[in-house]
C-alpha cells in the first residue's frame, strides 16, 4: 500500500511537473493562458497509438513522430489563431479552450469515444522492496527526470534560454536589448508543447486514453502552477509533486477517492493560496498584492 502510494505519487508528480513547466513558461513569456496545453498531450498520445497500433511502426519511431506531429500542430494553432489576438486576454482563454474542444471532437470522429491503451515501451517487472513495479513506470520516471534536466539546462545554460527568461522578466526591455519578442514567444510555445507532448507519449502506455482525457490534467496543471507560483520552475516542480502525492493518497486511502482526485488538488491549492497568495515560490510584486 505505502509503496504503491509512493510510486503513483512520484509518477503523477513527474507528469504534472512536465505539463506545468510548459504551461508556466508560456504564461510567463507570452502572457498566454493556454487552456489547450493538455490537449496537445492528448494528441501526442493518440498519434503514438495510431502509428503503433494501426500503422505498425516501431514504437520509438512512432513516439518520435508523435512528438514532432503534436508540436507542429501546436505551433500552427499558435501562429494562425492565438498570436493575432494575444493582446485580448479573455479572447485568448476562449480560443485556446475552443481549440482544445476542436481537437477533442476530431479525436472523437477519428477514434471514437472508446477507451484506448498504447503498448509499453519496455515490458516486464522489477522487484523493488517487495513490490512489482513495471519497467514502464521506471522508464517513465527516468525519462521525466532527463527531460526536466534538459529543460533546465536549456533555460539556464543557452543563449536562447536566456532570451526566454529575459522576455519573461520584462518584455519591453528584452525587446530593446534586441530580442525578437514574437519569435521568442513562438519558440517558448513550441518548447512548452514539446514538453506536454513528451508527457503524453510517456503516459500513453500507463493511463487510459479517451478524447476527454485533457480535462483532468488541465485542472491539475492550473492548480500546480498557482500553487507553486506562476513563472517559477522550482515552484512548478514542487507543486506538481505535492499534488501528485495528494492525488495518490486520496485515491488509495479513501474508498470513493477516485471521484475526489480533482477536488482534493483544488482544495490543497485554495488552502495554500489563503496562506500564501503568491504561491509557494512565487515572487509577489507590490503592485500585484491587493
Amino acid at each position, binding site marked *: 500500500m505505502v509503496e504503491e502510494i509512493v510510486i503513483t505519487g512520484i509518477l503523477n508528480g513527474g507528469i504534472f511537473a512536465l505539463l506545468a513547466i510548459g504551461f508556466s513558461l508560456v*504564461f510567463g513569456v507570452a502572457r498566454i*493562458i493556454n487552456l489547450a496545453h493538455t490537449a496537445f498531450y492528448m494528441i501526442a498520445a493518440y498519434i503514438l497509438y495510431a502509428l503503433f497500433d494501426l500503422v505498425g511502426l516501431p514504437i520509438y519511431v512512432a513516439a518520435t513522430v508523435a512528438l514532432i506531429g503534436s508540436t507542429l500542430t501546436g505551433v500552427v494553432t499558435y501562429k*494562425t*489563431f492565438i498570436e*493575432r*489576438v494575444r*493582446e*485580448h*486576454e*479573455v*479572447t485568448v*482563454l*476562449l*480560443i485556446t*479552450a*475552443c*481549440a482544445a*474542444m*476542436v481537437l*477533442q*471532437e*476530431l479525436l*472523437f*470522429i477519428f477514434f471514437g469515444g472508446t477507451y484506448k491503451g498504447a503498448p509499453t515501451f519496455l515490458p516486464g517487472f522489477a522487484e523493488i522492496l517487495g513490490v512489482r513495479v513495471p519497467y514502464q513506470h521506471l522508464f517513465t520516471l527516468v525519462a521525466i527526470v532527463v527531460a526536466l534536466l534538459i529543460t533546465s539546462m536549456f533555460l539556464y545554460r543557452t543563449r536562447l534560454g536566456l532570451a526566454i527568461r529575459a522576455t519573461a522578466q520584462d518584455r519591453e526591455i528584452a525587446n530593446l536589448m534586441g530580442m525578437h519578442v514574437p519569435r521568442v514567444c513562438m519558440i517558448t510555445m513550441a518548447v512548452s508543447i514539446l514538453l506536454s507532448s513528451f508527457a503524453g507519449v510517456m503516459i500513453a502506455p500507463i493511463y487510459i486514453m479517451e478524447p476527454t482525457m485533457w*480535462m483532468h490534467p488541465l*485542472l491539475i496543471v*492550473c*492548480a500546480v*502552477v*498557482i500553487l507553486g507560483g*506562476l513563472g517559477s520552475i522550482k515552484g512548478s516542480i514542487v507543486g506538481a509533486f505535492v499534488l501528485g502525492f495528494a492525488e495518490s493518497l486520496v485515491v488509495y486511502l479513501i474508498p*470513493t477517492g477516485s*471521484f*475526489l482526485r*480533482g*477536488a*482534493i488538488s*483544488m*482544495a490543497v*491549492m*485554495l488552502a495554500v*493560496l*489563503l496562506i500564501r*497568495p503568491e504561491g509557494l515560490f512565487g515572487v509577489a510584486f507590490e*503592485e*500585484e*498584492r*491587493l
Partner: protein
Amino acid sequence: MSIVGVTSRRRIRRIAKGIQGNLLAIPGRLLALIFGILLFLIPAFTSDPYILRFLIFTNIFVIFAVSWDFLCGYAGQVSLGHAAFLGISAYTAALLDTRFGLQPWATIPVGALAGVLGGALIAIPSLRLRGPYFALATLAFPVILTGLIWVFPDVTGGEMGISGLHRLSHSGLTDYYIVLVMTAACVVVMWKLTDARSRMIRTGVILHAIREDEIAARAIGINTVRFKFLAFFVSGFFAGIAGGLYAHTLRVVGPSTLDLFISIQPVIWTVFGGMVTMYGPAVGVYTLYPLMEVLRFVPEYRVLIFAFLAIIILTFMPEGIAVWIRDKIEEECPRCKLANGAWRRYCRACGAPLRLEHAPSSGNSSVVGDTK
C-alpha cells in the same frame, strides 16, 4: 451640466426627451427594443412547445451570461468557474423542492441566495489574487462541488442527480412569460447597476474606476474590497436565479450542471457577443445557442463546428460581434461622448461634427476629436 435647481416640469420633459434620446435615437437600442417586443409577441405566432421551451432555455442562459459579464466584464474578475453559481442554486432549489415540497416561487429566491453565498466563497480568494491567477483559481470551485456530489450520493443523488422537480407553472405559455419577464427584469437591474453615466446609482462608475486602476480607486477613497464583494454577490444572485429557473425547467439536476463546459459557455457567449456591454452576452446567446440547436442535425460534428466557428469569428473580431456591429451603426460624438446613428454628420446634442471630411477612416473619430 448641473442638475441643481431643475423644476419638476423640466424634469418631466427631460424624461420624455430621455426616452426619445436614449431609446429611439440610438440604433443599437432601437434594435434591442424591437427584438424585445418580438420576443413578447412570439407566442402569438406559434404555440409549438418545442420552440417555446427552446426560447425559455435561451432566456435563462441570457441571465447566466449577463451575470458573467457583470462579474468579469464590469468588475474585472474573470471567472472560469461560473458553473459553481448555477450548480449551487440548482441543487438548492432541487433539494428544497424534493425534500420539503416547496414551490418554485420559494425555491428560486432561496436558490439565488445560495448563489450569493457561493459568490461570497469565491470572493475570498479574489481579494488576494489578481487577473490570470484568479481566473485559474476559480476553476477549482465547480470541481470541488462535483467532488462533494460524488461523496454524498444519498443527499445529492450522485450521478443520477435529483429528478421530479415541480414545473414553473402549469402551461408552457405561462412558463415562457415568467422566464421572459424574469430575464428582462434581471438584465435591466444589472444594466442599471453597471451604467457608468447614471447619476443615481454609483456602482457603475465605481466598478469602472476599480477596473481601470485599482490603486487609484483606493487612493480617492473607494472601499474596493466592499465593491468587489458586491460584484460577486450580484453576479451570484443573478446566476442563482438562472440556476433555479434552469432546474425547474429541466426538472432534473445532475452533476452536469457543474461541468467545465457550463463554465466555459458563458465566456464563449459573452466574448463572442462583446464583453463589458450588456447586450453582448445577449447577442452571443441568441446567436450561438440556436446555432447549437441547428447543429443537432449533425450530432457528430456539433461541438467541432461550434468551436471552430467561435475561433474563426474571435480571430477576426476579437472585440465581439455585437461591438463590431455597433461600431458600424453607431458613432460616438468626439466631444460629448453621446452615441449617434452612423447616418448623422453632426452630433444630435452638441452639434460637433462626428467625422472630419478627410479623416483616414471612421474608426479613428475619437482620436481626431481629442486633437481638436
